[in-house]
Structures are given as C-alpha cells and as structure tokens.
C-alpha cells in the first residue's frame, strides 16, 4: 500500500470509529458499577423474572444515554434471542399521542409481520397495543419501549404516558418503559396519576472526569494490529500516540476542551477534526494537529462577526455603545443617526454617509445578530423606529476595534473616552 493510501485508510478507520457510538461507549461498559450494568440489570430482570419495570435516564446531551441503552439492548438480544422486542419513539417526532400510537402500531406490525393500516384510528391502535401486550405477556416476550426526548412527551395531557404506564400495571403484560431525557427534572414534569405509576428509577449520566476523557481518547485512537493496516505503520502510530498522551501539553489541551464542555460529543468533535487534519503523507498524529483542532472547535462567533464588520458598521456600533453608556433608555435608528451626526460635527470625520446607506449597514448588523430588536414582532413599525439593543460587550467591541486593520483613530478615541 502506498503511503497516501495507508493514511487515507487510517483516516477512514478512525472516522468510522469516532462516528460510531457503540464503539465509543463500549469503553464504559467494562466498569461494574456503571450505568451500563445497572441498566442491564433492570432490563434483564424484567426479561428473566417476567415483571414490568420503568426507568428514566437523565443527563446532558452527548453523554451517551441512547448509546449505552443500545449497547445494553444488543447484549440482551444476544443473550435472550427472540425474547425482546424494541419499540422506539422520539418526543420530537411523536409528541402528539395520536401520532405516537400510530407509530407504536406501525413498529409492532413491522416486527411481527402484520399488515399495518394507515387509516386506523387512535382507539383502534390503542386496543391493538393492549392486545399485543397481552399476547406478548402470554408468550413471555418482553416489549421494551424507548421514549427519547421524554420531556416532550410530558407536554399536554400525557395521554400516551398514562396509557403505557397503566398497561404495565396489569399482570399479564411484560414490558419495560425507558425514558431518556436531557432535562434533569424530567421526572417532576409528570402528572400525579402518571407519576404514581412510574417506578422512579433514575439513572444519571454525568460528564466523565478528565482522566476518563484521556483514557477514552486512547481507546478511540489506538490502532490494533488486526485493523488491516501494515504492521510497521500501526507500530509507529501507536508509539507516537502513547508519547503524545503522556505529554503534559496534550493533557492541557484536553483540559481546556473540558473546561468549556466536558461532554463526550464535544471530545468526539475535537477528535474528528484532528483526524481529518491528519497529514496524508505521514499519517501520524502530532501535537500541532491537536492544537489546530482545538482552535477550530472552540469558536467565538460574536468576535468573528465583529471582525467582519465594515467601518461604517463599526461607527454604528460605537454610537449605540456610547448611547448605552449615557444611559439612554431606548435607542433606535433615528437616535443613533443623531449621535452619528454629532460625532461627525465634533471630529469632522470623512466617514459621513447618507441616511439610507446607514440604514442598510444597520440592517446588516441586525442580520449578523450584533444588534437585535427589543420588541417582539414590532407591530408593523418600520426598522427606523423600533428600539434596538447591542448584543456585544465593551471588551469585545474594544478587542474588535484593536484587531481591525483599518479602524479609524476616531473610533479608538471615542472608545477610550468611555472607558473610565
């Protein structure tokens, strides 16, 4: 294999690993006291002891709730073939109970090779669900309901949740309801009658610690000898990788990453960027690659927008900032033009433009979200009269003016004026 091919093959392999949640989170399945084992115990006890159960998985986005649930279900399906049937619902898509019931019926029909009718009403689907639960209970087959975005199911009358959890109370059914939510108070959103039928088992998925993140990086990036790549390449890659992982600077990079967002999905984005920057000739990771990946992952959108402003737009921002500093209550385009004119009269700048040109620049700033309207829909008033507020702070504006290449000195002077 040519050198370029090897690097490309390695890239492909690593990218497949990074975008595959089951590979990433299999790292967490080894610990005996982890969420993985607890969850496995809950569901497997329901299968083996033919009882009903419900659980709620909570944690911020990107911490692996669905991924670990999928791993558990996969394991259990291997251990107990044909005894588990999974139905997946998503609160974003099926928040309405009619829609949800239709989806449940559709998935049940698909699994058991029955004919699904799109015209079936809510009651038909509901009775179908009940009879399926009864049949599966008699056949000792467990139905697992996975409710993703659980908090979106709790809006409205919570009809679906009540029906499902109520069905679990009957003796003949054998089902597990697992809710997954990114809200930490998801269980408090339940109505009283629904909450009383819920078992209140909660599993918290929290951010991994810094050491865990380092170990996860190693788990993802190290190449094994049976990966189809030439052995000497694998050996050099791995030795380089271990050296890097032991380096203090690399640990510093991971820590900086974790200060902002310690979730695993953030780390995965960082690793994805690093792998895509892999040099196609050598195919070896280096510290520089990780440093540039860090820069690309941590963005400062407001600073970027400020750096993109033209000089007229900077004038408008400084005018509004000065008016804010003078503690004027409302500021709109007209009052800003007054301030702009007064600056022009005081300093005799060359940058005095007509009203409609300034209005256009004003609208650019609104598009970029550096300014925004204070009132909601505006009640049909035109752009010139609606009150606006500035969405950037003093230090950001100051930094932007400093780094702008051709910023006129007038603006600097005006900013200095207000500093004290």
């Amino acid at each position, binding site marked *: 294999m040519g050198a370029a091919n090897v690097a490309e093959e390695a890239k492909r392999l690593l990218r497949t690993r990074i975008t595959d949640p089951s590979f990433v989170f299999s790292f967490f399945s080894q610990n005996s006291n982890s969420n993985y084992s607890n969850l496995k115990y809950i569901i497997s006890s329901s299968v083996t002891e033919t009882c009903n159960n419900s659980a709620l998985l909570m944690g911020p986005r990107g911490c692996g709730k669905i991924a670990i649930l999928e791993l558990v279900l996969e394991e259990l399906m291997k251990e107990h073939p044909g005894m588990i049937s999974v139905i997946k619902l998503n609160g974003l898509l099926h928040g309405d109970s009619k829609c949800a019931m239709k989806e449940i019926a559709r998935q049940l029909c698909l699994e058991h090779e029955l004919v699904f009718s799109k015209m079936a009403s809510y009651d038909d689907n509901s009775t179908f669900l009940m009879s399926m639960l009864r049949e599966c209970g008699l056949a000792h087959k467990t139905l697992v309901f996975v409710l993703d975005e659980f908090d979106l199911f709790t809006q409205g009358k919570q009809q679906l949740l009540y029906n499902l959890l109520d069905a679990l109370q009957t003796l003949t059914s054998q089902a597990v309801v697992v809710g997954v939510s990114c809200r930490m108070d998801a269980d408090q959103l339940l109505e009283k009658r629904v909450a009383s039928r819920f078992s209140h088992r909660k599993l918290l998925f929290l951010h991994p610690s810094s050491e865990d993140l380092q170990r996860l990086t190693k788990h993802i990036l190290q190449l094994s000898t049976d990966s189809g790549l030439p052995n000497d390449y694998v050996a050099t890659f791995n030795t380089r990788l271990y050296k890097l992982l032991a380096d203090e600077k690399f640990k510093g990079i991971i820590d900086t990453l974790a200060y902002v967002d310690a979730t695993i999905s953030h780390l995965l984005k960082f690793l994805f960027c690093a792998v895509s920057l892999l040099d196609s000739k050598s195919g070896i990771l280096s510290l520089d690659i990780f440093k540039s990946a860090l820069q690309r992952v941590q963005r400062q959108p407001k600073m970027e927008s400020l*750096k993109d402003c*033209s000089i007229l737009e900077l004038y408008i921002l400084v005018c509004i900032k000065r008016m804010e500093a003078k503690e004027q209550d409302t500021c709109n385009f007209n009052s800003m033009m007054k301030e702009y004119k007064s600056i022009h009269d005081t300093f005799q700048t060359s940058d005095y433009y007509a009203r409609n040109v300034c209005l256009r620049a004003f609208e650019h700033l609104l598009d970029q*979200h550096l300014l925004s309207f204070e009132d909601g829909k505006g009640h049909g008033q035109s752009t010139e009269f609606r009150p606006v507020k500035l969405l950037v702070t003093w230090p950001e504006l100051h930094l932007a003016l400093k780094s702008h290449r051709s910023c006129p000195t007038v603006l600097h002077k005006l900013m200095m004026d207000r500093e004290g």
Partner: protein
Amino acid sequence: MCEEGTPKSSRRSARLSSGASPDPKPPATAPPNASKLQPLSVDDLMLHGEPLSLDGLIASFPARRSQILELISLLGPLDSPMMPLFVYGGASTGKTSVVLQIFRHLNRPFIYCSLITCYSPRILFESVLNQLLLHRACESSRYASAKRCERPSDFVNLLREALGNLVNTLKGNVKSESTKSKTSRVNGNMIYLIFDHVEVAREWDMSSSVVPLLLNLHQILNMTEVGLIFISRASLDTFHSDTGFAEPFQVYFPAYNEEELRSIFMKDRAKSKLYNAFLDLVLPPFYRITRRVDELSVVFTPLFKKYCEPLDDVGTALSEEVKRKLFSHLQPYITMYMQTTFFSSEHLPNDTSAMKNEIVKKKKIAAKKEASEEIGFHMSTSARYLLISAFLASRNPATLDASLFDSTGGLDNRKRKRKVSEKSMEKKETKEQELLMKGPGTFPLERLLAIYQCLTSVIDYASDYENADSMDAEVCNNVLLPNIHLQLSSLCSANFISKGGSCPLEGSTRYRSTISEDMALKVARSLDFPLFKYMYRS
C-alpha cells in the same frame, strides 16, 4: 386539455375548465413531450459539468483556499462516515457555491434543498423525498410530489426508506463498476443532504420543532452512509432551542478583506490594467461602507462604464496623465454613488445631463420636478389625499388638530400673542424631538376621516371644467364616504397604513401610517398641497 377522470382529482376544477369542450384529438395519444423526459437516475444527483480538479476549484474561488481545503478534509476520503457540518458566514461569502463546486470536484451524489424555496415544513419534506426518490414532476400527475408528507414522523420514516433504497442502488453501482465499463460517474456509496439558508427556519411557525428536527436528524436517522451539511448566514448560537440539539461541526466563512476583494474583481480580467486602475480608485472608499461582493458589484458595473467614457480606445496605454484625467471624470460620480443605497441600477440616476445639472445646482434648494422625484406608481387623487391625511394623523399629536384645522377647513392662521420663555421652549423642543424619534403614532378611524374631510373641503375647484383632474376631484368629493373604506383597505394591503390591534378601553382599531416623510412630500407635491404647513415641526 379536458377534465377527464374528475373523481380521481382531489382538487376542485374551475367552472371554465370543467365546461370545456372535449378535446378533438383522441385522448389515447400521449402528449408529445412526455417521451423526451427520461426517468431520473442516480447520475442526476450530481452537479453536472466538466470534471473539476482541485487546482481548478481553488483558482475559481480566489480567496477561499483554506475553507475549501478544510471542507474537503472534513468530508473525508470516499465512503468514510461524517459528522454533520454547519457552514456559516455573512451574506455573499461564497458558502453555497463553494460547497456545490466541491461536490462537483469530488463527483459525489448529493441532495440540495434551500429553505427559502421550500418555505414550509411540508414543502421541504416533499422536496427532499422527491429528489431522493428520483421523482420527476410531470404534467400527467399534475406536478404532484412523489409522496405526500406533512408530519415529521412520516418524513423520518419515508426518508429512512428512501435513503436505504438509494444507498443500495449506489452500492450496486459500485459493484457493477468492476464487471462492466463505468457508465455511472457517481463516486462512492454515501449520499449527502445539503440544507441551505437554515437561518430562515428560526422564523417559521413550527420553528420549535423544525429546527431541532433538522439539527438532530443525524442522530435520529442513525445511518452511516448519510452525510448532512447545513449552510446558514447566522452562527449556531443564534439558534435558540428550549432543550437544545446535537451541535454539528462548525465551519466559518469570513468576510473578504480588501486584497481578497481585489482578487475577486480581477479574477477574469487579470490582464486589464484599466480595471486595476479603476479598482484602485473605487475600492478603498466603498470598502469602508460595505464588504459584500454583491453590493459592491452592483455599484462597480455602472461606475466602470462611466470611467471608460472619456477613453476613445480601451486599449490605450495608461500613463499618469490619462489616469488623472479619468480620475477627475469619475470623482463626482463616486461621491454621488456613495450616497445611494446599493440596490439595482434602476434606482441610480442614469441620465448624465440631469446629474450634471444637479451638481451645478447643489447650492440651490432642491429642484421640484426631477425625474427621480415622482412616485413610481399611479394613485387616484382621493387615495393620495387619504394617504396625506393618514400621514398627518400619525405625525401630529391629536391635540393639535383643533388648532390646525378650523371649522371651514384649511389652515388656521391665528397668530399667538403670548411670549413663551426660553426654557419651556427648550423643553418643548426636546419633547418634540423625542416624539419624532419614537416614530409615527396611531390614530382611530374617526380622526382620519375628520382630517380627510377637512383637507378635501378646501380643494380648489376654480380651474376650468375641461381639466380632467378637477373633474376627478369633484367626483371623488361627491362620492366620498362609500369609497373611503375601500381605499383604506387597499392602502392597508399596500402597507402604506398598518392596522394595529384594538385599544382595550375603546374597542376601535387603530391605524398607523408607515410612509416616510419623503414619500408624503412627493405625494403632496403631486397634488400641489402645502404639506409642510400642516406638519408638526417640519
């Protein structure tokens, strides 16, 4: 075409078409165009054109080298799975064109949907599905979509099915490549979905479900052969969501700086020293106003024409003297163009003689009848008076009406004898200025009608009866009231007057005039009406 098979069509047919006589030609012959339209194949999911090399790609986008290389590295080698990408940047920074040309260079199949053309969730879903199912809208099926899809749950199910089929077709293509000669130019077995202008989805009514749906689509679908790319003008932090979404990987397209703009404008004219000299003159001043390519190019095209006017032969050598001559010719135009907004060239004065006159007359008061001073559309006289009345009602506070309009209509010229102190004058002035800043006020319908009646009662009928205008005015004054509400509603739908909510105490709707002072003055001038006498603090 006659309306056969009406039970099948779900739409109501117009009376005219259902009463049409039967087609004289036998209906068995298919329309002649149908056979020419081939069914779509996977090849059509690519951007067609000559094969594009990497160097060609970088050369066609002068300042976008690092972004192109970044995007290509993130898209990765053939058939490698991808995290969703979020490409953002200001307007006209080349995001859409760069992404599409990259796909042309890589020869990979993709689906493109712009959220401006697909302006509602249903149209968006159906457009995506149509492209994935290789559906061609034809006349026989009344240009219907392949599948009817309104709800997000249906969309995800159909999408999964369509993507699965398409990926299988692509895999089949790849396999068959080794056996027979390559008929398909499509590379790989991954399919990419590109959603453009995602920022407009924030303002949709269903935005709370559509925005998280799109951004979480990758997690929901969970298919490794699908890549998602979002293009947006706004950065990701402006997408507010209650419970958040899985953040895609962000790629930023910065705005161009001065050298980059120069290289873009010089791209196809590298040998033109004339254009280079022209850019030296115009780019620095206009760069201070805006950095957008589309706005600058709208201004530069007419300016370049003006610049080349004094030259007899475009190929003459550019000495310093020639350059100075051209500069002095262009200079007044530059100043003039800098004071206009960068709209299409219609709004810019084309007539050079009128423009020259204007420069000469700059010190005088603005001329009354210039070509650019007329309103660009026709309005009846009563509508104009109504518009002026609305403007006055919004502009003046209600308490002033009694003093401005006395019982005979017309301006009240009583002079006030009392001398007011300076301090209260100052306070009054600042209060008046503030009132102006706040914008036009609202007024009830009765006040509008009262002012309208006052104004129209003083229309001068002294002119001779042959004059069509006065006939018009007299007629309109006679049939005053029945037409008013019609006129008012048409002014409202033209957005000259906006209708607000009703006041909770009184229960009547309030209106507000939304035209600018310039426009009101234009309208008044066309009627020879002394508007500034009636205006509050003109």
